[in-house]
């Protein structure tokens, strides 16, 4: 883009502690909400008595599921994809049954946190404790405890007559896998498991809700989408969308985990009942016990190839834990598993399985990292068996423009081959290793999405501009919006101020997720800025008393069109803005789009590790992320996305897991015991930006935020296998697990 700033709008506030996050907001008369949570993994709620809590001095409101509409269980359109609002409602506050330890049962609002917590202790809940099930394989058994009496497996014929914990079976098929395996010269079959892992955002869920006397509801919250919060709360509480206004707070990390609501509907119900603004903030323990991690999975992979390395058949069966309610990312797991490769015969089968854990939520490239762990690990073994270089094996089979994906369409313009070639040429790949060290390589794919976005560009009287969009900035998107607007307007980036509007001040924007904002909302910004440019040309034409076609816009200045030889002077944006009142009034552009054509993203990662054979500890020595980013609007933030995704994936590979006791209670609900990597655990992660522009975006943008978490699980596992000679197919490869494997 030619020019970009080192920082971003808002960075100074963040690093100096001035930024206002969800928990920082306060209102006069505000009171505090707290949640009573289930101590049981699975139990029927026999009764709830809130009488004594309600009588406690200082308590202003108590709510239970009885204060929420009893919504039907039906899948309806919501945002960009189907939603079952009953599940979201019953997850926010339990109705009839608690389905995991930490499931919300009641909520209290009081004049202080101390009074609210005292009131929680006065709520009497009678439970009938039920057998529970945590592990996905156990949950799939015929004799497993059933979470939902009315859940019948979708996607199987004939329709089941007995309920099950398997919510759905999904299948994707390309060609004839049986014939492909029959012609294969080498067949490799392996099983893998991954654990549910939390997104680990630093900022806990937090909100303030205020319901006015006329019913008008205002919510300030930290989320990945103010319009999502409005939509979900409106449906859960049966309020008109127009009666809820949601203002986005600064967000301290989301990674997919803030694409749903937990506290907001409770805070609204408490405010409605008390007549006071209510603030609710989760503790870290609540974040772990009651907000969604991504799914753990059980996967089987089968690869068939010729001796020259050509893949001719592939199959993958995966079962993903959804947590307490259906909705694991089994479908995208199936769709992404083999998307990096041109395999003529392939099948994936996925199972969406409920168990007594918190309902899973999205996490960067939902479903893809687990599938890639299995496929990329198996490919590494295949390369070893064939005696091939692992990059060459991938290059031989790499998807290119025109390759048919297992899920249907042919690939558009993509840059996977370019990432592999960059990996092969990188100094990292050619650096010698020492004893107990190994190098792993793995690749990954994510679709990236578009969707509905709106933007407005307002020109101020002094020639500066404001860009208003409706997507919370979780990865530097404000900077990208300003850069793109500045590029179109032809003015300096410093003169453009990006703002994130609330639900009443900007047109609808689907949430910040799917790596869509710089692509889709960015496209809306470009259109809105082009709208402004057209208006600026028209104003210049008015001043010059000529036709608009006789005015061109270049570098922030109106010029007479080429061939015009009169004496008109040039007009800068600032000059046109200053005279706007005399030429037609304020200058503002806007655009609302439903954007298609998101360019798929591919990445290839290189990882060097050293294994301590005495302790099983793995040290990551060097890590390089190579990714097709389309066109990097703000290269610094793109690198940050790549490094962050890799760091999270390394934690997923090496340490992160939920530890449950035999009663289904989580034992490690804090960062001391739930081990995410910190800066001192990792080397500087090198980021290599490969730019294969997406032709469906005016600046060539592809989403970049999700691809980088897809390859690390296998990149690390492959490096460990090559360093130690022992392959661990069950994550995490924690010291005790690796040591046990080394001792065998």
């Amino acid at each position, binding site marked *: 883009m030619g020019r970009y700033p080192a920082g971003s709008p808002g960075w100074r506030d963040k690093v100096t502690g001035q930024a206002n996050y969800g928990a920082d907001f306060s209102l006069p008369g505000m009171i505090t909400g707290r949640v009573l949570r289930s101590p049981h993994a699975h139990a029927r709620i026999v009764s709830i008595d809130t009488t004594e809590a309600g009588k406690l001095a200082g308590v202003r409101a108590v709510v239970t599921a009885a204060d929420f509409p009893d919504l039907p269980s039906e*899948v*309806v*359109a919501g945002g*960009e*994809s*189907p939603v079952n609002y009953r599940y979201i409602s019953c997850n926010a506050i339990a109705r009839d049954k608690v389905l995991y330890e930490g499931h919300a049962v009641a909520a209290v609002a009081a004049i202080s946190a101390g009074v609210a917590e005292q009131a929680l202790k006065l709520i009497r809940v009678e439970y009938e404790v039920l057998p529970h099930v945590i592990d996905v394989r156990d949950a799939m058994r015929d004799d497993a405890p059933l979470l939902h009496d009315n859940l019948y497996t979708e*996607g199987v*014929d004939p329709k089941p007559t007995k309920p099950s914990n398997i919510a759905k079976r*999904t*299948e*994707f*098929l390309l060609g004839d896998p049986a014939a492909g395996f029959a012609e294969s010269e080498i067949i490799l079959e392996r099983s893998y498991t991954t654990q549910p892992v939390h*997104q680990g955002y630093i900022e806990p869920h937090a909100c303030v809700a205020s319901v006015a006397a006329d019913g008008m509801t205002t919510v300030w919250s930290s989320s990945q989408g103010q319009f999502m919060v409005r939509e979900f709360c409106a449906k859960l509480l049966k309020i008109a969308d127009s009666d809820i206004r949601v203002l986005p707070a600064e967000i301290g990390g989301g*990674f*997919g*985990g803030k*694409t749903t609501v937990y506290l907001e509907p409770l805070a609204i119900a408490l405010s409605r009942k008390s007549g006071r603004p209510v603030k609710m903030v989760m503790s870290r323990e609540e974040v772990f016990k009651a907000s969604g991690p*991504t799914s753990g999975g059980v996967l089987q992979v089968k690869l068939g190839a010729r001796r020259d390395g050509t893949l001719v058949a592939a199959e993958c069966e995966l079962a993903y834990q959804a947590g307490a309610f259906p909705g694991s990312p089994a*479908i*995208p797991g199936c*769709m992404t598993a083999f998307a990096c490769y041109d395999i003529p015969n392939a099948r994936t089968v996925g199972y969406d399985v409920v168990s007594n854990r918190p309902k899973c939520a*999205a*996490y*960067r*490239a*939902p479903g893809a990292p687990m599938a890639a762990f299995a496929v990329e690990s198996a490919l590494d073994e295949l390369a070893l068996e064939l005696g091939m270089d692992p990059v060459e094996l991938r290059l031989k089979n790499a998807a290119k423009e*025109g390759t048919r994906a297992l*899920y*249907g*369409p*042919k*690939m*558009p313009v993509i840059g996977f081959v370019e990432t592999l070639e960059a990996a092969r040429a990188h100094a990292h790949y050619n650096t010698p290793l020492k004893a107990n060290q190994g190098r792993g390589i793995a690749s990954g794919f*994510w*679709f*990236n*999405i*578009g*969707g*509905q976005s709106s933007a407005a560009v307002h020109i101020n009287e002094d020639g500066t501009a404001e860009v208003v969009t409706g997507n919370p900035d979780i990865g530097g998107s404000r900077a990208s919006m300003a850069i793109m607007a500045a590029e179109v307007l032809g003015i300096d980036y410093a003169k453009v101020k990006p703002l994130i509007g609330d639900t009443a001040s900007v047109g609808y924007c689907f949430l910040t*997720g*799917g*790596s*869509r904002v710089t692509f889709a909302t960015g496209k809306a910004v470009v259109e809105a800025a082009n709208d402004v440019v057209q208006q600026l040309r028209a104003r210049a034409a008015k001043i010059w008393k000529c036709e608009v076609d006789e005015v061109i816009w270049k570098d922030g200045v109106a010029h007479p069109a080429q061939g015009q030889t009169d004496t008109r002077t040039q007009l800068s944006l600032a000059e046109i803005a200053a005279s706007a009142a005399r030429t037609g009034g304020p200058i503002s552009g806007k655009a609302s789009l*439903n*954007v*298609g*054509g*998101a360019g798929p993203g591919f990445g290839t990662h290189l990882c060097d590790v050293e294994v301590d054979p005495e302790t099983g500890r793995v040290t990551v020595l060097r890590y390089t992320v190579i990714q097709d980013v389309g066109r990097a609007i703000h290269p610094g933030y793109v690198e940050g996305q790549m490094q962050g995704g890799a760091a999270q994936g390394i934690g997923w590979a090496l340490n992160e897991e939920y530890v449950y006791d035999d009663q289904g209670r989580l034992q490690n609900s804090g960062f001391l015991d739930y081990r995410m990597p910190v800066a001192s655990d990792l080397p500087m992660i090198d980021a290599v930006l490969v730019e294969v522009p997406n032709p*469906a975006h005016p600046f060539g943008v592809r*989403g970049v*935020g*999700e691809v980088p978490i897809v390859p690390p699980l296998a990149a690390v596992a492959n490096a460990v296998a090559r360093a130690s000679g022992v392959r661990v197919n069950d994550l995490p490869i924690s010291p005790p697990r690796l040591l046990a494997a080394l001792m065998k």
Partner: protein
Amino acid sequence: MATVLLQPEFARRNTAGQRLVEVDADTCQALIERMDERFPGFADAIATGVAVAIDGQIYPDPLQQDLRPDSEVCFLPALEGG
């Protein structure tokens, strides 16, 4: 004639198992109408939670998209992300 490609599970439920269907249509909306005439209920089946890929590009709202005579149209699950 545009070519419609369907996954087996979807085809089993909505197009009597036909995974490849030729349709004479110049817009995606017309294609869906033709498909619904041949396979009643098809339009309802794709109304929620389905995205459409036309010649390799995925569109969340494809109705207004034009088709070429040799266009390839795939119906696939709607995509989200983290």
